[in-house]
C-alpha cells in the first residue's frame, strides 16, 4: 500500500519512529515531574527524613499530627499548585504563541500579569474590593477580575475588523505599560506596610497555596485542555501562516477568538493566586517546541509538562538556596531560568522559533 513508484523505503516508517521518540520524551518529562514533586514535598524548613514524609503521604493515619499538618496542609498544596500553575501558564503561553504567530507572546507580554498585579494592589493599598461580597478573598479576586478585564479587552478588540496579529500584540504591550504605570501610582501613595505587601505579591509566591486553589486551577486545566485537544490539527495548521491555514479549511478568526478566551482563563486564575510568574509562559512552550516540535498532539502536553517541571524545580530551588527560608519563586524563575533558556536557544540554533 505504501510502496512508492521508485521503490524507496516508505517514509511512513520513519514517521512512526519519530512519534515513538516523542512519546518517550513525554514519558521522560512526566518522570522528571514526579521526581521533582517528590523532592519538593520532602524539602522544607522542618527537616523530616524522606522516609517519614513518604509514610505521611501514603499512610497519613499513622503519622504524628504536626507532621501530617506540615506535609498535607502546607507542602502538598504548594508542590501541587506549582504543577497546576506551571502547566496552566505554559499551556496559555503555548497557545498564545501559536494563535498570535509570535514567539514572545505570553500572559506576561500581553499585560495579563500586569493587570493582575494592579488589581491585587488595588485591594492591598486602597482596600477596594471589586466584588465586595467576597471580601476575604479580595486580593486574588481583584487580581483575577483585572486580568480577565485585560484579556477581554484584547479579545474584544481583536474581533474588530482589520485587527491583525501584530495589532493585538502591540495592544498587549500598551496594556503592560498602562497597568505598570497605574501600579506605580498606587505604590507612590501606599503606606509602608501596604507597599511591602504589594512588592512581595508581585514577586510571585506559592506560599499561600491551599487545596482549594489547587482544585480550582486543576479544574480549569481539565476543562481547557480537551477543548484545545479537539482543535489540535487546526492549531498546528495556524503555525503555517494564516492564509495557508485558511486554505486548508481552518476557520482562523473563530479559532483565534476561541483560543484567546480559553487562554485568558488559563492565565488569569493562576496569576491571581501566585502573583507574577510570567517567565514560565514563555520558557515552557519554547522548551517543548525544541524537544517535540509543534505538532499540537505532542506540543500541548509537552508544554504543560515542561511548565510544570520548571515551576516545580524552581519551588525546590527556592527552598534549597537559603536553608530555612523560602525565596519568592518569581525571582528564582527569572534568575535561574533565563541563563538556562538563553543557553537552550543559542545552542540549538534552529531557524524555526
Amino acid at each position, binding site marked *: 500500500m505504501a510502496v*512508492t513508484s521508485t521503490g524507496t523505503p516508505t*517514509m511512513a516508517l520513519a514517521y512512526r519512529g519519530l512519534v515513538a521518540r516523542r512519546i518517550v520524551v513525554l514519558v521522560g518529562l512526566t518522570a522528571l515531574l514526579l521526581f521533582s514533586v517528590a523532592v519538593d514535598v520532602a524539602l522544607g524548613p522542618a527537616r523530616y527524613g524522606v522516609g517519614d514524609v513518604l509514610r505521611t503521604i501514603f499512610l497519613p493515619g499513622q503519622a504524628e499530627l504536626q507532621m501530617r499538618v506540615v506535609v498535607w496542609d502546607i507542602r502538598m498544596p504548594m508542590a501541587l499548585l506549582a504543577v497546576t500553575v506551571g502547566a496552566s501558564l505554559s499551556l496559555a503561553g503555548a497557545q498564545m504563541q501559536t494563535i498570535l504567530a509570535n514567539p514572545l507572546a505570553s500572559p506576561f507580554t500581553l499585560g495579563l500579569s500586569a493587570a493582575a498585579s494592579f488589581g491585587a494592589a488595588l485591594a492591598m493599598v486602597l482596600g477596594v474590593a471589586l466584588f465586595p461580597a467576597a471580601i476575604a478573598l479580595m486580593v486574588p479576586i481583584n487580581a483575577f477580575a483585572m486580568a480577565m478585564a485585560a484579556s477581554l479587552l484584547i479579545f474584544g478588540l481583536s474581533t474588530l475588523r482589520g485587527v491583525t496579529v501584530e495589532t493585538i500584540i502591540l495592544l498587549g504591550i500598551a496594556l503592560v505599560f498602562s497597568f505598570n504605570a497605574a501600579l506605580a501610582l498606587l505604590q507612590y501613595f501606599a503606606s509602608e506596610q501596604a507597599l511591602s505587601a504589594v512588592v512581595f505579591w508581585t514577586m510571585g509566591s506559592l506560599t499561600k497555596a491551599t487545596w482549594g486553589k489547587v482544585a480550582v486551577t486543576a479544574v480549569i486545566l481539565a476543562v481547557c485542555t480537551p477543548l484545545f485537544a479537539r482543535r*489540535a490539527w487546526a492549531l498546528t495548521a495556524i503555525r*503555517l501562516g494564516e492564509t495557508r491555514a485558511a*486554505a486548508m479549511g481552518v476557520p482562523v478568526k473563530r479559532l483565534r477568538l476561541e483560543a484567546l478566551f480559553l487562554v485568558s482563563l488559563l492565565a488569569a486564575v493562576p496569576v491571581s493566586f501566585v502573583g507574577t510568574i510570567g517567565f514560565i509562559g514563555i520558557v515552557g512552550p519554547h522548551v517543548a517546541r525544541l524537544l517535540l516540535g509543534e505538532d499540537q498532539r505532542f506540543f500541548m502536553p509537552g508544554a504543560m509538562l515542561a511548565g510544570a517541571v520548571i515551576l516545580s524545580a524552581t519551588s525546590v530551588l527556592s527552598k534549597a538556596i537559603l536553608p530555612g527560608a523560602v525565596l519568592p519563586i518569581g525571582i528564582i524563575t527569572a534568575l535561574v531560568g533565563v541563563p538556562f533558556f538563553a543557553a537552550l536557544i543559542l545552542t540549538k540554533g534552529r531557524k524555526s522559533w
Partner: protein
Amino acid sequence: MVSLALEQISARYGRRDVLTEASTPPISGGSLTALVGANAAGKSTLFRRIAGQLGGTGAVHLSGATEDDLRYMPQDTAMTAALSVYESIILALKQGAGSWRLLGEELAAVDSVLARFGITHLAERQLAELSGGQRQAVSIAQTLVTRPRVVLMDEPTSALDLYRQYEVLEALRIYAEETGAVILLALHDLNQVMRSCTTTMALSGGKILACGPTLEVLTPDLIRSLYGINSRVERCSQGCPMMIVDGPAASVS
C-alpha cells in the same frame, strides 16, 4: 469530469473593486488551465473569491465536485513552524477529520504525494530549513495530498529552477489527467503557459478579457493589452509556438 464556471463574480477590498463581473464558460478538468495577467490584475483575489475566502456577488458553479473538493494554494510565504515536511503534509490531510490517530492509508497518501513531486528525500527536513524552491514543492504536496478535484495555485513555479518547473508542471498535468481535476494555475511565463496549459484565462484590471484555448487567447493584441508589450507568437524550428518579446508598446497609457 469536473468543471468550473464563473458567473458575474465580483470582489472588493474596502471600497476598491478588485474584481468586476468576471464570467467564464465552463472550464473542464483533465488538463491544466493558466490564469495570466499583470501584477495586481486581481489574480490572487480571484482565487480567494473562488475558494470562498472572500465574499462578493456572483456565483461559482462547480460540477462533478463540491466545495470540499476544492483546494487553494496561496502564494509562497515563509514557514517558521517547528514541523518536519512530513508532519506539515499530514496536517493538510487531517484538517476537518479531527481524530488524533493516523491510519496506515493516510500515511500512504503522504508517501505517495511526496514521491509524485519528487521530494521524498525532504520528508524529515524541518520546514524552516528549506530553500524557497523546496518550500514551494512542499506547498504543492500539501495542497494535493487530499486529492482535491478543483485546485487553484497561485504562482506554483515562481521559486523553482528550470528543471523543477518542468517536473512540477508535468506532475500536475499527470494529476489532472488521472483525476479529471480542474487545475487553475496563476503563471507569469507565457512560454510555459503555451507549453503546458490547454486553456488560458486572461485577467486585466479585475476583468476577464478572454478565456479559451491557450493559442487562441494568447495573441499579440491580447498580450499588448495585458502587459503593454509588443510581441510575436511564432513556431520554433520544432513546431512549438513561442512568444518573442519585441519591446514595450509605443504608447502605454
